[in-house]
């Protein structure tokens, strides 16, 4: 209803609609566009890095700019590309999969997005104001505390603001999944994607506070003269590393787990089989989440923690290979004997298995603390984490986007173009990163601006750069596909893949209230249960009645805008106290908006039964 209205009212109304929306499906679009944009920026930075390393002693970009490039590439890809794209999927799919009409806190959902976006924008404004952060995405002290200029200040403020958004989003999805499941949807009937999002949200809840604390300490060290990380004044630089990795290691599971869930749904749908070992998969997901908190120090084996600490963290790290292995085998057994359809989504998923397994294997190699002294800070590590993050997260994002695109936009991404995008990306990915393992073993350190001639590193680096270009070509073809599909493709039904879970039981894209009547869930893969009994759709759990929906609001945007303005005040008040005026203005806007929200009752609105019946007549509820 509201989408149709918005289209009739022109561009301005549509922009206002998106600025104020609290609808999880539209917030998913916002996350997708913003995350996609930052993904392209991060990709561009990666290309510049690879061009710089194309030949020995290259001077394509300067050493200082190179440091900024590697820092911003890592930070952008993790915090501003992968996280929001995952949030896009979570928003688009989770409420539909559990049979809910929205998330538990629609207002907070919107606030989470705008905080993330403004945090990301702060971070990238630094390019135009005298230099981006340049202390690596890990921002280790004391390099970061003495880094000249304001680059690292931008890092601190940007991540603090976008981190708050992520934390809000995580809590929101926890509450949503605990409280808003449709009747009959017990925990052990939730689709694996929902399970994975549930565990991920718990990880966000427990891991992000460590980052928040670390960033606050860093902020006070850089802006207000404290000495938490200053060894000369009795501080300790290692504290930052611990805080960062107590957050940072769970963070990599926050990235990969939702896509493990998406792969599970994709494998089961396109093999026309229920997921093999569902309960083992749930157990493995929870176990990975649990163990994820006990392994952070494997990033710090060479810090000098001593042999006992190193051994404990080494063993804990290797233990994670067990639940991950369970998952890999269960995916293969799901496909075994299934009626497999090799769609583009399936192609990315199948390619993920060997790629990710290679990454997992080098992970176990790195987990051996004694051997890690050789690998540490070499290209071997770079190869390893790109294998898990690109081979796992990026492949997963492409697969999940192909899979859920029809649910989000009502059109199937062109299959031919999808496969055409896959091949250059897949080949380019292995070209880029496989060789980096060997470069690392030959002794090429990571984060170095140049490498020298005659050390046997030329061929490997050239191959790596060629691979990066192939990946760029794959990405461009995917973008062409998105445009092509939105212009040329025809609308499809609500269930184009012959799906198994609840989101496929409603039209594509769904009406803004999602379910005309809340469905009754009678088993795992609820839609499939109904289909196998010869029914077309879900059995409703309630009579047709009025639906209560939240109102749109501009306040989340204003709250975030206030913090954005205040952020600049905090960064520049070091130079001149007059900048504090921005802090007061920004915080005033933020706190004033929060006060408005608290004092003004907003009880939402009702969609009446008659309107729903009208929608049903138009075929919206089929």
């Amino acid at each position: 209803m509201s989408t149709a209205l918005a289209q009739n009212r022109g561009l301005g109304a549509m922009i206002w609609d998106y600025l104020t929306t609290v609808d999880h499906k539209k917030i998913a679009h916002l996350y997708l566009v913003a995350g996609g944009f930052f993904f392209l920026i991060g990709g561009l930075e990666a290309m510049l890095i690879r061009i710089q390393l194309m030949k020995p002693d290259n001077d394509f970009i300067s050493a200082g700019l190179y440091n900024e490039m590697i820092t911003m590439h890592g930070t952008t890809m993790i915090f501003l590309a992968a996280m929001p794209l995952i949030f896009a999927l979570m928003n688009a799919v989770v409420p539909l999969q559990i049979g809910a009409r929205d998330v538990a806190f629609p207002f907070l959902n919107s606030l989470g997005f705008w905080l993330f976006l403004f945090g990301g924008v702060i971070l990238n404004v630094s390019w135009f104001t005298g230099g981006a952060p340049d202390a690596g995405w890990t921002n280790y002290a004391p390099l970061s505390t003495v880094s000249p200029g304001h680059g690292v200040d931008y890092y601190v403020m940007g991540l603090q603001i976008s981190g708050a958004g992520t934390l809000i989003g995580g809590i929101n999805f926890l509450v949503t999944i605990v409280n808003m499941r449709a009747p009959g949807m017990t925990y052990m009937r939730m689709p694996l994607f929902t399970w994975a999002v549930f565990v991920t949200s718990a990880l966000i809840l427990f891991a992000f506070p460590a980052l928040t604390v670390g960033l606050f300490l860093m902020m006070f060290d850089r802006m207000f003269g404290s000495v938490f990380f200053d060894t000369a004044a009795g501080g300790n630089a290692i504290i930052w590393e611990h805080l960062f990795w107590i957050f940072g290691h769970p963070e990599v599971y926050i990235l990969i787990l939702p896509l493990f869930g998406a792969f599970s749904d994709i494998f089961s749908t396109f093999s026309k089989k229920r997921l093999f070992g569902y309960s083992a998969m749930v157990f493995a997901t929870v176990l990975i989440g649990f163990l994820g908190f006990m392994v952070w120090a494997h990033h710090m084996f060479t810090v000098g923690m001593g042999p006992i600490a190193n051994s404990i963290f080494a063993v804990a790290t290797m233990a994670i290979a067990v639940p991950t292995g369970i998952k890999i085998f269960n995916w293969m057994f799901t496909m075994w004997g299934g009626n497999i359809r090799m769609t583009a989504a399936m192609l990315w998923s199948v390619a993920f298995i060997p790629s990710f397994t290679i990454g997992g294997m080098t992970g176990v190699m790195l987990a051996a603390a004694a051997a890690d002294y050789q690998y540490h800070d070499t290209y071997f590590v770079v190869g390893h984490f790109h294998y898990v993050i690109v081979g796992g997260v990026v492949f997963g994002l492409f697969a999940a986007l192909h899979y859920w695109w029809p649910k989000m936009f009502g059109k199937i991404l062109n299959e031919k173009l999808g496969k055409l995008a896959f091949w250059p990306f897949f080949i380019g990915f292995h070209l880029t990163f496989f060789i980096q393992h060997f470069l690392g073993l030959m002794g090429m350190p990571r984060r170095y601006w140049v490498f020298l001639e005659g050390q046997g590193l030329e061929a490997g680096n050239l191959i790596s750069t060629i691979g990066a270009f192939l990946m760029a070509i794959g990405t461009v073809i995917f973008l062409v596909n998105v445009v092509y599909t939105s212009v040329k493709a025809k609308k499809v039904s609500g269930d184009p893949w012959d799906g198994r879970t609840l989101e496929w039981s409603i039209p594509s894209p769904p009406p803004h209230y999602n379910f005309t009547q809340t469905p009754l869930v009678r088993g795992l893969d609820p839609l499939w249960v109904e289909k196998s009994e010869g029914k077309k759709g879900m059995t409703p759990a309630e009579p047709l009645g009025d639906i209560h929906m939240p109102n749109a609001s501009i306040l989340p945007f204003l709250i975030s805008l206030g913090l954005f303005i205040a952020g600049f005040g905090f960064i520049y008040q070091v130079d001149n106290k007059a900048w504090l005026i921005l802090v007061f203005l920004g915080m005033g806007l933020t706190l004033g908006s929060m006060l408005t929200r608290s004092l003004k009752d907003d009880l939402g609105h009702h969609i009446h039964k008659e309107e729903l019946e009208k929608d049903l007549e138009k075929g919206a509820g089929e």
Partner: protein
Amino acid sequence: MDNQSQTPQQKVEFERKQHKEEMKQQVISFALMILFTFIAFGMVLLDIGSVFLVPTLLLLAVVQVLFQLYYFMHMKNKGHDMVAVMMYGGLAVAILTIIAFTTIIWW
């Protein structure tokens, strides 16, 4: 309890009994918490050696927190499993962090 087979009269009776039981537990735990507080203050006033004092104070504090959570905030009642999982999960992460900081970083 089976609501279907009860008359409203019986139901009221049952609930009253439940409330009485609940009240009794709350009063007992409240009295114990006051007692613990007196013991804690007394121990500090009487200058008992710190080797014994600090662990005892911590123990008393933990017991009081548990009383708070389970009796006053109803965690002992049904339907609080997820709350418990989340709280103990968060606690585990926090304790792990503190252990790491006190053993690895500062010895």
